[in-house]
Structure formats: structure tokens, C-alpha cells
């Protein structure tokens, strides 16, 4: 758009220049990811950039019982991660769908106050509450349980999710809903039958976002899960990175990292359109 010149050869060379600039800026990122992939199947792991020989030895964690005495099995850990991410996704999206609808379409006393506090909490740096949340979980006997951390995660992302969902509901034209109500549907039926199908892209976008954020969660799991049986992939990979225990095996590190990253990467590649549409919980006026 900026390079709207009339002469097309000038424009083309201008574009080439821009692409060269961007490519130069972006090369380190691409190299980093490529390096991870290559090292994970390189027989000498990091000893050469291009593999000198292929091996699946670094991927042994997938089929051996444990990589180290006392370590949980990778599939148990993966199951935990999956459970955590899916639960966060389902809870966050369904709660936001319910409340976002009310915030967007109902007029009631205290609506403005509720909207204001949602927006306020949305910019609030929730991680600073981590010490207090520790005591809340302790009082609720949810410390050291994945369910407890799920609830925390959902709650802290809720202001963002509510705001996004409210935005998607705002986009549905009123006459659609009016017509359904005039035809005798109650508001619950209208919500379920008429409105939800219309914001399917919004539901997809928020679901993806919630899943990825649950999948990548680290600090809350580190702080509130105290036993190895509750480990998720983030804890597993972080421990190979040397979280406390000296344990450096570059090949294993790259393979496990790649294994952990793969679902996130796949979702991102397939659905980046939806994710970019989600304004990261950000509304520009």
C-alpha cells in the first residue's frame, strides 16, 4: 500500500529491496527453528549444522519407559498437557460465551460497571497475584492438582476472553435476534440456536488461543504442581534444560523440545488466520 508507485519496474525493485530487508531481519528466527529440527535427528546432535548422519536415538524418550530414574513417562506427561490445555480451552470458551453474550446483548443495572471492571482487569498484570493465588488454592485444597491450576489459568484469562467474545457478539446485527424473539423463542434458545452459529469464527479463534496458551503454560504449573506425577510437557522440557538438576543432553533437549512444540506449530500453521484475527485481547480505539 505504501509503495503505490505508478511505474511497475520501480515498484518491483522497491519491493525486492523491502523483502531483502525483512528477510535479513527474519533470518535469525528461521535459522533457530531450522537448527532445532536438524539437531534433533543429527547423529552428533550439535556437532555440525548439517547432519553428518541420521539417528532417531534422541527421540528414544518416546519409547523407553523413562529417560532417567524417577522421571515420569513421556506419554503420561503428554496426557497431562493435553488434559490441561483442552480443559482450559473448554472452560474458558464456554464461560466466555455465556457471559460475553449477556455483556453484549442485555441491558441491566450494573452492566457498565461490569464491563468497566472487565476491561480494567484485562490490562491488569495477573501474574503479580501468584503468591495470593497460592493461598487461595491452598484454602480450597486444590494445591498440587491440575484442576486447581486450570481454574486459575481460566480465571486470569477470562477478562480477555470475555472482552473478545463480547466483541464478536457485538458484531451480529440486532434484527436477527429481534426476529427470533418476535417469533417466540426465549433468549436462551436465541443464544444457542441463532447467535452461536453466527460467531463460529470467533469461537474457533478463542478456542485455538486458549488451547495454545494452556499448552504453553509454565510458571503457574511450576509453582502450584509439586509432584512429578502432575508434570506437563513444559515442566518436562524445562527440567531437561536444567531446572535444578544437572542434565545436559543436547540431542534429547532438541527432540523433546520439538515434540512439545509440534502441536502448537501445527495449529499455528493451519489456523494463523484465526489467530491473527484475535486482537490479542487488545482493542484499538
Amino acid at each position, binding site marked *: 500500500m505504501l509503495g503505490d508507485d505508478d511505474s511497475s519496474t520501480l515498484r518491483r525493485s522497491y519491493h525486492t529491496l523491502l523483502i531483502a530487508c525483512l528477510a535479513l531481519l*527474519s533470518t535469525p528466527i528461521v535459522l533457530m527453528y531450522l537448527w532445532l529440527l536438524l539437531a534433533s535427528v543429527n547423529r552428533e546432535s550439535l556437532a555440525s549444522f548439517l547432519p553428518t548422519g541420521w539417528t532417531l536415538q534422541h527421540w528414544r524418550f518416546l519409547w523407553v519407559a523413562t529417560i532417567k530414574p524417577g522421571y515420569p513417562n513421556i506419554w503420561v506427561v503428554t496426557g497431562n498437557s493435553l488434559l490441561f490445555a483442552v480443559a482450559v480451552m473448554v472452560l474458558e470458551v464456554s464461560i466466555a460465551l455465556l457471559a460475553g453474550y449477556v455483556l453484549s446483548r442485555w441491558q*441491566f443495572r450494573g452492566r457498565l460497571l461490569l464491563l468497566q471492571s472487565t476491561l480494567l482487569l484485562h490490562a491488569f498484570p495477573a501474574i503479580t497475584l501468584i503468591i495470593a493465588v*497460592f493461598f487461595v488454592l491452598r484454602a480450597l485444597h486444590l494445591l498440587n492438582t491440575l484442576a486447581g491450576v486450570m481454574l486459575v489459568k481460566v480465571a486470569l484469562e477470562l*477478562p480477555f476472553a470475555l472482552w473478545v467474545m463480547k466483541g464478536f457478539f457485538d458484531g451480529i446485527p440486532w434484527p436477527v435476534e429481534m426476529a427470533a424473539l418476535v417469533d417466540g423463542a426465549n433468549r436462551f434458545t436465541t443464544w444457542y440456536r441463532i447467535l452461536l452459529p453466527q460467531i463460529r469464527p470467533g469461537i474457533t479463534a478463542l478456542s485455538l488461543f486458549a488451547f495454545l496458551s494452556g499448552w504453553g503454560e509454565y510458571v503457574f504449573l511450576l509453582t502450584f504442581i509439586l509432584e512429578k506425577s502432575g508434570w506437563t510437557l513444559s515442566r518436562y522440557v524445562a527440567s531437561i534444560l536444567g531446572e535444578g538438576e544437572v542434565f545436559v543432553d543436547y540431542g534429547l533437549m532438541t527432540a523433546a523440545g520439538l515434540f512439545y512444540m509440534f502441536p502448537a506449530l501445527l495449529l499455528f500453521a493451519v489456523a494463523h488466520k484465526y489467530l491473527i484475527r484475535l486482537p490479542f485481547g487488545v482493542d484499538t480505539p
Partner: protein
Amino acid sequence: MHTTPATKRLWLPSPLLLFLLPALLLIVVFFVVPIGITGVISLTSLDYRFRWDFVGLANFLALFQDALIPRVLLNTGVYVFTTLLVFHLGLGLVLALLTAALPMRPAVIFRMIWLLPRFTPSVVYILLWRLLLDPTEYGLLNRLRAALGAAPVDLLTQHPWSVIVLVNGLTGASLGLVIFTAAIESIPCDLLRAARVDGATTLQIVWRLILPLLRWPIMFVTTYQTLSLLASFEAILLLTNGGPFYATEVWTLYAYHHAFTFSAFGYGCAMTFVLVLIGCAVSLFSWRIFRFTRQVPTPPIENG
């Protein structure tokens, strides 16, 4: 039950409550209550014995005695300021402007590359950096240096701040990229063409036309990212854990260490409570600025 409309609006009708209840419950239990608890704990000497003994403002006074606090404050300031200015705003803007000038296809590819770190699990993103900067000759950087005949370096120990700012900056720049791109794309094409016809150079168009139009998005990214940088410590925790010798300890990480390494919950909460107050103040302030009520149209249907 028959009520007049005026009293009917006083209370939430029950289906409304059912729709709102789960959200309200979670926000109260994990947001509102913890904000209160942070305040209360900061007034106690709560530690590993879990005894709630009130000590008044002793924890806050102790902050002034703590010899490490000046260092932590300086670290936090440098970290927030440079990351925000150089990467979140600077690089974000540069990337948005460069990609906006490109045709659709290459622009999308570059945006995807820059969004990739944001959607990579943070632990793996840090792992990538650890491999890149590995102090042995096997690190990618040292391998490149070796090709040029230079000796291996250990950047993470020698220049921890540059590394941390860079690591955080690359993920943060993508937020700026997305927001600024959306804003640039909403500028009417006619405006840019008119400027072009009037003989403005590209630099003039960027400086005199686009940047002023990006005022609100820039303000937004600044407030939002300042808060999240003040509070975030995940990358530092994974990269250096505050070391070497507190060189990279920032405010929240210091609080975190006090609470979960030394079990000094009272002191830790006193530290985070300061941030909670800052968070509330900045949020209130930004909501004033961004003229909140304009974004909230009143629904034409009342409760049903």
C-alpha cells in the same frame, strides 16, 4: 410475579445470573480475593510456618532497608524501558511499515515468521535461545564465529541484559506488528495516494501522515506492554533465574524468589502489592484515556 419495569431492573433476572455466574465466580475467587489477600499478607510476617502474625507496615519499611532493592529497581527500569522502546514499539513499527508496503503474499509470510515465537511454548522458545547461545563451541552463534575465526563467547553470562531484552523483544514485537498493521490497513488508501500525488516522499508519508494516525495504537501498546513487562518474569526465570549474582533480578522475580524460594510470603506480597497498586493506577488511567464508554453501545433489547 408482577413488577413494574423500574423495580424489575434493580435485580438481575435469574437466567441472566445463570449466564454470568461462572465468570463472576472465577473472577471473584482468583482475581478480586487475591488482590485483597495480597494486601493482607503484605501486613503479616507469613512464612514457612504459615502463621498470620500482623506486623503493620514492617515489610514495606524493610523494602527501604534492603540493600538489593536499588539494584532490582534499576534492573527493572532498564529492562522495561529498553525492551519497550527498542522492540515493542521500534521493531514493531518497522515491521508493520515494511510488511504493509509489500504485496499480500510475502507480507503474510513475514508476519507469520514473526508471530511464530509468540505461539511457540515459552519453554521451547527459551530452549531455542539456549542452543543458539550455548557457551561451548557447539552453540550456533559460536559456530558462526568459529567460521569467521573468532573465539567462542558466553553471551548469556557476559551480557545477560542484552540477551534478555532481545529474547523478550522478539516475542513482544509481534504484538506491535499485529496492532500497527491493523491500524495502517485501516488508513484510507486515498489519503496515501493524495499525499503521493502532492509529491510527498515515502519518508514524509510515514513521518507526517502515518505516525500521527497511529497515535492511539502506540499509546495503547505503550501502556499495555509497560504493565506486562513490569509483571513478566518467565523468560528471565528460565534464562538466568536472576543471576549471575542478582544481575538480572527484576522486581517480580525478586518477589517470586522471596515467596517461593525463601517462603517469605509477607515480604514477597509487600513487593507485589506495590505492583498491584501500579497496575490498578495505570489501568484506571488508560481506561480514562481510551474513552471507554464510546465503545459500549447500549443494547436495544431489555431483559427478556
